[in-house]
């Protein structure tokens, strides 16, 4: 007997909130409870409702977990974002210098507003990506106690 597929919104939500290793452990627990306790007692339709309800009840705690991890990695994320911003700005400046050097009779002058705004926006996007990546990162659980199915 296999468990009914979990609702799509539950899977999407867990994917957003938890790294893969945690998500798999949590989904495994839910599926074990569903198969061994809930499905025989409630039947298919109510079992699916139970599953959605369980995820909904877990939402505040999982959101808290996600935020706590993000804040725990905030200094690393900020440093990564700053570095990415500086590297992007230097690269953009070098590229601009090169392009202008290829245009005859055109001196550099100050960069345009659009150029500066583009640099800042690019840095912010890179910083955000770094912060999200750092928030999802976590230490790995120890190695498995035994392989395969028990």
């Amino acid at each position, binding site marked *: 007997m296999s468990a009914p597929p979990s609702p799509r919104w539950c899977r999407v939500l867990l994917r957003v909130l938890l790294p893969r290793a945690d998500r798999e452990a*949590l989904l495994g*627990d839910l599926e*074990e409870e569903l198969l061994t306790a809930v499905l025989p007692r409630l039947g298919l339709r109510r079992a699916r409702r139970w599953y959605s309800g*369980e995820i909904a009840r877990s939402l505040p705690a999982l959101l808290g977990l996600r935020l706590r991890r993000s804040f725990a990695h905030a200094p690393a994320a900020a440093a990564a974002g700053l570095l990415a911003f500086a590297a992007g700005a230097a690269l953009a400046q070098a590229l601009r210098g090169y392009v202008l050097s290829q245009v005859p009779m055109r001196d550099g002058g100050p960069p345009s507003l659009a150029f500066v705004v583009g640099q800042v926006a690019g840095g912010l996007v890179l910083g955000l990506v770094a912060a999200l990546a750092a928030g999802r990162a976590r230490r790995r659980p120890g*190695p498995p*106690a035994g392989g395969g199915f*028990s």
Partner: protein
Amino acid sequence: MGDDRLGEFEQIVLLAVLRLGDGAYGLSVRREILSRTGREVAIGAVYATLDRLEDKGHLRSRLGAASPERGGRAKRCFTLTAQGQRALAQAQRDLAAMAAGLDLKWRPA
């Protein structure tokens, strides 16, 4: 590491892990809490607490074996660390010290 003080639910979770020994993972911890206290807690709350306790250094986790009834997914098993045992013992001592000499059979009128 760092903050060794434990909240009430953290103590309950640590005691459940201690009782379950090698068989402590999210679902078994939740079942243990339900069977002993009657509290039906969300699995997400159990996981968030286990994760926080591991961050504090009170628990250690490892991946357990996968099984067919889990859809082939591995369990994340937890064990208490020496630091966790000390923190739990301290919390229990604090509670006993605060309760000593009080009449806890009080009932609302």
